[in-house]
């Protein structure tokens, strides 16, 4: 569909989740380039290296050791070069508190990690093909949590 591959970056401390994420993306018929980082610090280091390409979409797990997803979100939004990267929160939690906080901090979409593989594929294809410019302008608290 697209000539240019879509760059996707995942920050998740769980190895299984990283692998399944990559599997799911690979099974999608979309031209993507996936990169993964193991924790918040690695994510920030990766993003702040000037010669690294910025991802089109960043999938951010919240519950990570040391630097949590929320910490990363706050930090990214402070950096001019990074603040326009689309950020999809990718978490097991669906607590009101987490949803509220990440919305306020400027995340673009909130995904609850699905329980089965086919749901995962569906969610990823949806998120990757979003027209971010359009999505962001119509973003509100009600459509922030992506419903399956």
């Amino acid at each position, binding site marked *: 569909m697209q000539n240019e591959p879509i760059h996707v970056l995942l920050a998740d401390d769980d190895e299984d989740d990283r692998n399944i994420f990559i599997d799911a993306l690979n099974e999608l018929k979309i031209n993507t380039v996936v990169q993964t980082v193991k924790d918040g610090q690695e994510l920030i280091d990766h993003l702040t290296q000037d010669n690294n390409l910025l991802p089109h979409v960043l999938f951010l797990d919240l519950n990570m050791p040391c630097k949590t997803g929320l910490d990363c979100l706050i930090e990214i939004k402070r950096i001019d070069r990074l603040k326009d990267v689309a950020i999809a929160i990718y978490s*097991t*939690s669906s*607590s009101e508190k987490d949803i509220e906080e990440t919305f306020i901090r400027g995340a673009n979409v909130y995904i609850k990690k699905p*329980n*089965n593989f*086919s749901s995962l594929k569906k969610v990823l294809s949806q998120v990757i093909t979003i027209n971010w410019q359009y999505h962001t302008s119509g973003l509100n608290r009600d459509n922030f949590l992506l419903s399956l």
Partner: protein
Amino acid sequence: MNLRGTFNSSTFLKSIFVAALFVFIYISSVSYKHSVSLSKSTELVVHSHKVHIELEQLMSYLKDAETGQRGFIITQDSMYLQPLVIARKKINRSFKILKQLTKDNLYHKKNLDTLSHLINIRFTFLEISAKLSLVTPVNKRILDKTILKGKGVMDNIRVEINKMIDLEMSNLKIRQTKYEDDAYFTPIFMLSLVLFSLLVFVISYIKINKDLVTLQKANQELIINNAAFKQAEILGDFCYTRWDLKTNKLIYSDNLYNLLGCEPHSFEPTVENFIKFIHPEDRNIVATGAENVISNDMVYIRHYRIIRKDGELRYFKSLGKIITDDEGNKIHIGIGKDITQNQLDNLALKEKNRELEQNNAELASFNHIASHDLQEPLRKIQLFISRIDDQEGHTMSEKGKEYFVKIQNAANRMRTLIDDLLLFSRANKAEKTFEITDLNLLIEQAQQELIETIDEKKAQILTDQLPVLNVIPFQIQQLFLNLIGNSLKYSKANVAPIIKISCEKIVAQDYPILKADDKKTFFKISFADNGLGFDQQYAESIFILFQRLHQSNQYSGTGIGLAICKKIIENHAGFIYAEGQPSIGATFTLFLPE
């Protein structure tokens, strides 16, 4: 007891006594005047009589003289001349008396002068005629002429005397009338005044007596009240102070000394002495408080600490107020209370509360974390189950496939349990934002969420008009969702479920089952279904967490749904009850306060 009334009547008494005093002075002066005038009248009457008598006397002396002269002329005996001389003397004396008696009466004086002249002439004639009778021969003609002349003078004298007597008699008559008048009216006047005074005194006496009884009663009451107050002070750990701002005199109640750990009246009641017992850090509070009471005339409450004589720290609360007595004096009344026990209880309660809150928070976070952290591995189990199912499912043996489905079901059930537990912990949490909400909207949204099951079971839901209430919207929606979901879940196989939702406004007193104030109004919302129902003996236990009436493989319940309902209803200060009849249906009734 109306002491003010008694005080007022003492002014009344004072005025009565002042009036009585004036009446007495008046009575005394009037009676004095009357007595004086009476004695004057008497004197005047006596005087008139004296004058009268004296005049008669005078007349009789003259007659004596005449008789003597006649005797002498006839007998030529000088013995008869004797009375003449005596009469002359007596007449002179009588004249003197008369002059004395009538010295204030000009008319009498003139008459007396005339009379004296006439008497002198009369005597001259008497003497002349006596001498003439001695001459021999007697010149009868001259003698007769002299005697005749003398007789004429005598007639004049008689006329004159009679004139005087008449005057005196008419005077006497006037005086007599005046005297009689005085003598008649004085006693009546005096008597009526005495009677009037007596009346005043009797009234005053009755009044005094009555006031005395009232005062005695008031006094008695005061004594009893005082005794009761003293006991109350001791029992209630309070005390009072009275501070006369004019005389700067302070009075402390006995219990104040007791509360300070001292013997009553063991030190002089002064502000300085009291300040000594106050904790140094709190002295300012007491001083500014008193100033505020005095300058702003308002009731002022203060809290401060007291260090008792034995060094024990006590907490005090006091109230100051200015009252103004009948004479306009300002008096500062202070009531102090030892609130140490209260204070300690409060602190203990606060500590307990804090512990409780901490425990609660720990429990809530345990529940939350447990549910979350449990989700993580479960999600992976489910994810890998779906991977195996996708990729290796077709290579598995029949037995393997059967076991695999069981694993899948168990994992799904675990998922439901965790989700429900999360819901329960959410209903438990303190985020309770009440909003005025249309319950019709909430029930509609709940139905929307269940639309698939409703369609699948061909269920009919009949809903009354529901009210607009102040509720926590997402919780009430959850409540409706759980109740409708419950009815759908426990419906009879092959019978289309019918759920009737009815609503009415009720007053608590008509429903003794509600433990609420009689006058409080509630909305009674019932969910009645035609499902499996249940035995009434389980009507209460179904609301307990994890309590289930059906085997787990038969129905997919977790035993949390109704516990959540109960929690939500409790959050809204309402009530929920269940009624069931096996294989006829169940009714869940909610009472939500208006």
